């Protein structure tokens, strides 16, 4: 089967057509991935960093660690749900390569569900050990924390396998040959022969540390109202080295990926106009966040500064998602032309979805605002001082 032309394995063109134009579907794919990347980065690198700081950090570092671990159940819940969007739209646009790639690694791919359930319950148990303002994890919960960190990294690695195999068609025949019974796939393989796998994985893992650093600042400015001034100063001070370390990894592994192992078609697309605009922006934007963190160091972070830095990081992740999409599209271009798919617009369901999407965000904002204002008012009443809100 090594003689099999990978192009022959791309699934047959579907009969249904796209329910909306490819640009619309790609927009939601990229937007969805950007929104998913924010919480995902926090569990991906955040739990590991939180555990490292539990073991080796000072008092304020442990305080941030405990705050992140306490927030983790909510972060995971929203992160998982936000992850549905890019996967949904990936399956619409790239079904001809997505399904074969994931079937080739079916068992590791399916194991994500079991690993995620374990990691999620573990995160709850760890968070439970930090209730009531406790900052130090104790006993078996320390072990659980490390296990949760390892599980999230393992999940990330399997995801990197699936998505790199989706574009690595030339390895499909060999994987198929290794793992088939009468031509059927046993699904026990990984995309381990792909030279892009490791640098891609490490590049994104490094980028996740920059998001974790931004969380320190955002949390201190926007969420840590009850924490001391000292904590809010030290959060900004701690964020800078974490961000710089992440940035260094991003630069090293990103260079390895782009200039070392990336297929020529993708590199050309990224380094030629208009892709180069996004590639350069993706490379430079995290530096702008580092500069912002540098200016904030040693000062108590204000609400506005925390939100501004977080918005900058969302932009960084958005640019990264666009560049990834450019590289992915270029790599798949010889095998898959998504613009050739017939489009049968589903106007009314699409408009209804967009209306509900906007209305849903509005409802959530309204509920959160109501909760925050009322809880502050009740807190002020119980403290005997007028509410702020």
């Amino acid at each position: 089967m090594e003689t099999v032309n990978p192009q022959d394995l791309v699934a047959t063109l579907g009969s249904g057509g796209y329910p909306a134009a490819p640009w619309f579907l790609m927009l939601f794919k990229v937007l969805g991935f950007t929104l998913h990347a924010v919480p995902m980065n926090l569990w991906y690198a955040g739990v590991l960093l939180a555990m490292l700081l539990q073991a080796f950090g000072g008092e304020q570092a442990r305080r941030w660690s405990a705050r992140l671990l306490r927030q983790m159940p909510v972060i995971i819940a929203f992160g998982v749900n936000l992850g549905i969007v890019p996967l949904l739209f990936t399956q619409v646009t790239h079904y001809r390569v997505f399904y074969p790639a994931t079937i080739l690694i079916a068992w590791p791919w399916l194991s994500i569900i079991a690993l995620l359930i374990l990691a999620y319950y573990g995160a709850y148990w760890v968070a439970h050990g930090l209730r009531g303002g406790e900052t130090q994890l104790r006993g078996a919960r320390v072990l659980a924390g490390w296990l949760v960190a390892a599980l999230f990294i393992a999940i990330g690695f399997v995801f990197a396998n699936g998505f790199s195999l989706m574009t690595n068609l030339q390895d499909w025949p060999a994987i198929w040959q290794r793992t088939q019974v009468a031509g059927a796939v046993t699904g026990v393989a990984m995309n381990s022969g792909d030279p892009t796998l490791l640098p891609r994985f490490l590049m994104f893992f490094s980028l996740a540390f920059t998001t974790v650093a931004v969380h320190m600042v955002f949390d201190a400015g926007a969420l840590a109202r009850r924490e001391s001034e000292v904590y809010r100063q030290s959060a900004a001070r701690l964020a800078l080295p974490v961000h710089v370390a992440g940035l260094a990894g991003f630069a090293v592994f990103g260079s390895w990926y782009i200039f070392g192992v990336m297929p020529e078609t993708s590199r050309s697309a990224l380094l030629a106009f208009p892709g180069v605009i996004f590639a350069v922006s993706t490379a430079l934007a995290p530096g702008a966040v580092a500069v912002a963190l540098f200016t904030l160091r040693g000062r108590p972070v204000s609400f506005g500064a925390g939100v501004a830095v977080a918005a900058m990081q969302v932009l960084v992740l958005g640019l990264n998602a666009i560049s990834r999409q450019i590289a992915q599209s270029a790599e798949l271009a010889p095998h898959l032309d998504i613009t050739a798919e017939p489009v049968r617009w589903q106007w009314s369901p699409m408009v209804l979805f967009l209306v509900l999407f906007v209305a849903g965000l509005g409802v959530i904002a309204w509920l959160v605002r109501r909760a925050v204002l009322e809880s502050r008012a009740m807190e002020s009443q119980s403290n005997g001082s007028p509410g702020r809100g």
Partner: protein
Amino acid sequence: MHYPWWYVPHLTSPMLIAFIAVVHVLVSHYAVGGGLFLFVETRHAHRTSNREYLDYLHRHARFFVLLTVVFGAITGVGIWWTIGLASPLATEVLIHTFVFGWAMEYVFFVIELAAAFLFLYFWGRVTPRTHVLFAGVYAFAAWVSLVLITGITGFMLNSGNWPERGGFWNGFFNPQFAPQVLARTGGSLLLASMYVYFHASICSPSSALREIIGRRSARPALLGAVLIVAGGAGWFANLPESSVAALMKAPALNIFMAILFAVTVAVFAMLYFGPYRNPAWLTPGFGVLFLMFGIVAVTVGEFVREAVRKPYIVHNVVMSSNILASEIPGHRAAGFLESGPWTRALIAAKFPQVMDGTRIDERRLLDLPPPQRIEAGEILFMHHCNDCHATDTGLSAIPHVTIGWAPEMIHDVVTSPELFHHYMPPFAGTPEESQVLAEWIESVRPPFPAGMRFGPASAEGGE
């Protein structure tokens, strides 16, 4: 076959879907009904200033969030994950038809999450009115997500006029939509009450409070029972003829329907004579037993609901053999192996002598030496039949179902399986392909069991 086939020994990959789906349904229905329970009962507890009940509801809310937001949500993603692996063509069709339905469901999921966390984490930190509002928003969003997903699952069972007319709404408002919304809403109410009884019987401190919970939760549970009966009748009335015939014909489904009927009657009786008439019965033993009965009823019900779809994954659209119903005539002319990119590539690599340029010449399959014909037959079996039949041992394993079959019978069944069992998909290949498939089955079929007599034993003791 459009995609590679995922071989899961003994179990077959579609059974993984069934397993994860049932586990998910047991929690997701509680996520809907439990939301309504928390909304109604929190409002009642606030209005009557019942601190003890509020404390209990707080404990229940923690249990609820831990079970539904974590396990329920992730197993829901797990179903989607598994159908993409085990039934990629059906998933492709469903996603291209209902992507905006799923996207809308996702919006309501996010609202659910936000409302659930606000309800739990702002307990006692907002006014009762706002607190109840959070529960209400959660309950509404959860029910809408049930409605949205039911449009898709109902479509799979009876696609109505969608194959002729197409379109999102034609598929969504299929004949099974309204009955299944009724039945699932009822199931959510009933199952939620069972979880409440289970939790309250173990965690509620006072017998007086347990009685309040028993009495108050019995009414929505009874309403749920009525909705299940009404929805179930509608489900049956709107089944395609093929599904009704499967219910009558398949012995396993006969047994499951009998179990479903018996367990459902037992659940209704336990509800009426237990919490409704005798709330004091709410002991841990009763709570556990009642929930167990509920779990059995839901599990069997879901299994039957899935099984009656055969020979389709999506009624009249996608066959259980992972090809489109509309493709069958073309496959019979061109060949099953030729029509799938993975099977064509496999045959070209393994048996280049049957290729005519880039196409498989099906006639040449019969020119292969016997061992290679059997090998080709196994490839056909794996890609055409393994979704329902295990290869050696396990679920409906082919050597087990063909014990003692004569070669002529194997050939006849392989050529026209739908004429023997209408819930089997038609063979979508050429006569040459059915020949090599029959030869492979013959090679694994055990002989007729020895020692059986169908008449008086002879004087010599022979048969």
